[in-house]
Every structure is written in structure tokens, then in C-alpha cells.
């Protein structure tokens, strides 16, 4: 039976988008120390941007179902830029004034933002779910003994490219080093002359840009609706907890673990669909019981 390789492959493919969604969350947690409950809502906004681009390209411009690559190539930079700017604005006007205050206030603020953005989407964009008729969603590509849709493959490849790109940025670039320095020791970073506020602002912008990019890729996976955010953020949370709060580099393998585990459970456990949807919680709970620091030592 080909089931096992197929299951593993689907699990791996699933994890790409998880990693991309969770990495932004991990950056705002690791670098700024703020839990962004609104992260999923920004994924949702990115998905709408991607969807509208698809509508524009296939409607007025009259391109057929072969718009898929264009939606990715144009949509990701567009969505990332828009959300980067939005993220800097949100940070400057709402989060920065709260940085010295207690954690409860910061969490309340981002939770309030989540409620605000989600319901604004319900009012302005209607609660109706939208479905992009992208040809890639169902076109099959044979990979060895199994076959996958172009959409899954693209979502995985693009997500991985972006995640690896961000890792390279964090590891090598001046800005990335500054971010890691600020994450490790805010005061120390200040002492050596890093403009901490600026680094925070850019980190939050980057976090939202990643959410926006992930949103565009969700157009290939699922329907777009104002309620996309909650489902996304819970899985992203479980990945971040599994990796260890603020451990940016652990996000990748934690996503792999969740993706594969979900696929295995829904394939091999009778009635596994229910268990699959609750798996993220079991992971959070189990990690908190067994090793609250995440499975590897956090160094964020």
C-alpha cells in the first residue's frame, strides 16, 4: 500500500504553510515579547488581498485559470508590503505605548485588535466565504509513487523559500543580528547603540508581512472568510509552544511535527478527523505538562 509515503508527504507539504504562519508569531513573541492574538487576522487580510488579486487578474484582465503563478508572484510582495506598513503603524501607535506596561495589557490589546479586525471584515467584506477557482488547486502532479496537487506543492515550496529567507536574514544581516540581540537582552542591545524601538517596529512589520504572505498562499488551500484567522492562529500557537516561546529556529521542525502528526492521525486513527482538529491542543497541553520550555532549549 502506498498510504504511508503519501501520508508522510502530505504531512510535510502541510507543514510549510504552518511554518510560515507560525514564524511571524514567533518573531513578535521572541523579539518584542508580545503575544499577538491578532496574528491570524492578518493572515486573513493577506488572504483577502490574494483573493482580490485573483479576481482582478481573472476578471478585468481576462486571464484564465493559469493565473495561479501570477497570484503568487505578484500577490506575495503586494501583501507583504501592505502588511509590513500596517504592522509598523500598529506597532507605533498601539503597542509601543504599552511596552513598559504589564503583560495583561499587551495581551488585551492584541486580543482587542483581533476582535476589531475580524468583525470589521465581517461588516465590510461580508461573512460569506469566498472560493478562488484557481486551476492549480486540483491539477495533479505525480511525485514518485504518489501524486499531489500543484497548489499544495506551491504552498510548500513558496513557504519554505520565505522561511529559509527569513532565517538567512536573521542569521546573517545586520538587521537580523540586531533583532536577535534585542531579543536576548534589550538593555544590552541599547547599551551597544542599537535603536531598540526601530528594531521592534521593523520586527513587528516583518511579522505581519509573513502573515500576509501566508494569507496569499491560503487562497490556494481553502476558502477565504473573515473566520480564517482563529483556525490559523491556534495551530500557530501550538507550533510556537512546541518550539519553545521565542525560539525562531525551532518553528520549522515543530511545524513538520504538527503537519505529519495531523496527517498520520487522520489517516490511521479511526474517526481521526476529530482528533486531528484537536491535536494542536493536545500538543500545547502535553508540552506544558512535560517540558514547558519547548522540546529544545529556547535561545530567543
Amino acid at each position, binding site marked *: 500500500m502506498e498510504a504511508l509515503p503519501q501520508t508522510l508527504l502530505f504531512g510535510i507539504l502541510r507543514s510549510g504553510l504552518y511554518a510560515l504562519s507560525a514564524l511571524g508569531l514567533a518573531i513578535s513573541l521572541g523579539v518584542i515579547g508580545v*503575544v499577538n492574538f491578532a496574528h491570524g487576522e492578518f493572515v486573513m487580510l493577506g488572504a483577502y488581498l490574494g483573493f482580490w488579486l485573483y479576481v482582478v487578474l481573472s476578471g478585468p484582465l481576462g486571464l484564465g485559470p493559469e493565473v495561479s503563478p501570477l497570484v503568487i508572484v505578484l500577490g506575495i510582495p503586494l501583501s507583504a508590503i501592505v502588511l509590513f506598513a500596517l504592522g509598523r503603524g500598529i506597532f507605533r501607535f498601539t503597542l509601543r505605548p504599552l511596552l513598559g506596561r504589564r503583560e*495583561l495589557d499587551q*495581551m488585551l490589546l492584541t*486580543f482587542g485588535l483581533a476582535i476589531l479586525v475580524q468583525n470589521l471584515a465581517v461588516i465590510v467584506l461580508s*461573512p460569506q466565504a469566498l472560493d478562488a477557482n484557481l486551476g492549480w488547486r486540483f491539477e495533479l502532479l505525480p511525485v514518485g509513487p504518489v501524486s499531489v496537487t500543484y497548489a499544495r506543492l506551491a504552498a510548500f515550496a513558496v513557504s519554505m523559500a520565505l522561511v529559509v529567507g527569513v532565517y538567512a536574514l536573521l542569521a546573517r544581516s545586520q538587521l537580523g543580528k540586531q533583532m536577535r540581540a534585542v531579543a536576548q537582552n534589550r538593555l544590552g542591545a541599547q547599551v551597544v547603540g542599537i535603536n531598540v524601538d526601530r528594531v521592534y517596529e521593523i520586527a513587528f512589520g516583518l511579522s505581519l508581512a509573513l502573515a500576509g504572505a501566508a494569507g496569499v498562499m491560503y487562497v490556494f488551500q481553502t476558502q477565504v472568510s473573515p473566520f480564517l484567522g482563529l483556525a490559523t492562529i491556534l495551530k500557530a500557537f501550538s507550533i510556537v509552544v512546541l518550539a519553545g516561546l521565542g525560539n525562531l529556529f525551532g518553528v520549522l521542525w515543530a511545524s513538520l511535527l504538527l503537519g505529519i502528526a495531523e496527517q498520520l492521525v487522520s489517516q490511521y486513527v479511526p474517526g481521526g478527523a*476529530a482528533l486531528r*482538529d484537536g491535536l494542536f491542543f493536545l500538543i500545547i497541553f502535553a508540552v506544558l505538562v512535560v517540558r514547558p520550555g519547548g522540546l529544545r532549549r529556547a535561545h530567543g
Partner: protein
Amino acid sequence: MRRELAAWAAFLVLVAALPLSGIGSDRYLMLLANVMLMFMALALSWDVVARTGQLSLAHGAFFGLGAYTVALGHKYAALHPLLGLPLAALAGALVALALGIVTLRLRGIYFAIATLAFAEVLRTVALQLPDLTGGPVGISMPPLFDGDRVASYYLAIAIFVAALALSLGVRHSRAHYAVTAIRANETVAAVMGVNVVRTKVLTFTASAVVATLAGAFYMPFITHTDPHDAFDISRSVAALVFPIFGGLYTTAGPVLGTVVLRAFEEYLRVTPPWKEGYQVVYGAVIVIAVLFIPRGVLGLVQRYAPRAGALLGRRPRGSVPGTPSGPRS
């Protein structure tokens, strides 16, 4: 303190006398009054957890747990809804203990994340076990007191009094000092001899029991629920936005916030363009209050009309939102 208790006693007398004023025969107004008291209990219970500096996003989930416990008790054991109340309280206490012991040892972030995840997972469980819970179709039971909304109003008052007792009890006992110290700085509180984890777990458990009772009241009152209704995140949002708007860490604040915002919500829900998106107002209220009016409406009253404010209770002293807390652990 004595004046504050007298003010609450007077408030309770007024509330209890309300059905006599003629609205007792208006079924719609009595519905609003019942639901208002239920939400007051929910808001008061959430605020008690916030006093320890913790963000609970599970109060809506405990509400749903209470609703389902009563409904399942009726379905499988023909349990009277009034007997379902203690059963629901027990279920809420056990679940809160387990959740609290695991998550409250850690940073507040973990607790907030785990409570949000918990709420979602309860909904998933209720949806995916149709044989037990009725699945997406939901579950029904006969109306409380044969639909007598005045009678159920007095049951709602009883649950509100339980919430009030919890809120005032924490405020006017030694627990107040422990809770306030924990909010200011957990490390310092521990050094001063406060058992931080135990205080947080017990506070959360007591609070969750009240939230569960509110849900246990709601189920036979409304007679039908389903997983999306019972575990709707909007109730967790309500539980926290009412205290934030009214005034955090107080008893009058959550009550005041519930009256104002619930009344406003009734209007928004039937008025385009808000309708399903009415919670956008709550999102805005949270953001604005956290940024600009951290003490809520009550804080404004106490600042600009100190005499009226004194009746509503003392200002929460010591660390308030807006003052820097110690180093983040």
C-alpha cells in the same frame, strides 16, 4: 467598606423589586433582565482572574461547559436543571483545576494561549461526538420553571449574588493582598511569602465555577444550544470587555460595563451595518480602553465625581494598569 456593602444591598433590593415595577409581564424585557444578570456574573468572574494579572480566554468555554453539563444531565439522567447547577459547578471546578495546575505555573502568556486553545477544543469535542452531544444539531431541554421568566430571574439573581460574593470576598479579605501583589510582580509576591501558584489556581477555579454556573443557568433558560452557540468566543469577549469598559479590578466596574454595553449590543445586533459584526465595537472598546482609559468608566467617575465614586467602591490601589511592572520574567 460598610458603605460599599450597603450600596450593594440597596442595589440587590432594587434588582429584586424590578419585576414588580410592571416589566414582569413583558417577556422581552424579562429576557433582557435575565441575560443581563447572567452576563454580570460572567464579567465579575472574569475580573477576579484578571486581578492576578492573568488573561483568561476560556470563560466562554466554561459557560458552554456549564450549559452542556446541565443538558447532558437532563438527557441521560433526567436531572432537574436546579440539580444540574451543582453538577455543572463540580465539572467546572475539576476542569479549571486541571487547566490551572498545568498552565498557571508558567508565564501568563502560556495561560492565555492555553485558555484560548481550550475553548476551541471543547467546541471541537462537542461537534465530533454526535452520539453523546447531538453534534452540530445541538441539544435541547424543557424550559426552566415552565418558561416563567420572573421565576428564572430570581435564579439569575442567585447566581449574580454568588459572583458578587466572590468579587467582594476577594476584595475585602487577605486574598486581596496576595492577588494584588501577584499582579504587581510575581517574584516579589513569592518573596513576601505569597503562594503564587496556589493563589492563582484557586482564584481561577472559583472564577470558573461562577462562569460555569452562568452557563448552567443559560441552558434551561434558553432551552436549546449547539456547539457553535455554547462555545462561541463572543462570550469570552463579553466576559472581558465588560470589566475593561466599566473598570478593571473592581466590583462595580464589571456590573456597570455589562449594563451599558449589553444594552448597546441589543441595539447594534438589529441595526445595519453592524448586525453580525457588532463585536467590532467591543474590539474598539478594548483597544481604546487599554490605551487611554485603563481604569474604565468607573475610573472616570471616581476622578471627576469622587463622591459618587466612593459609593461604588475604593479605587484599586497600588499597581494599576499604566504603571510599569517589574522586569518581565
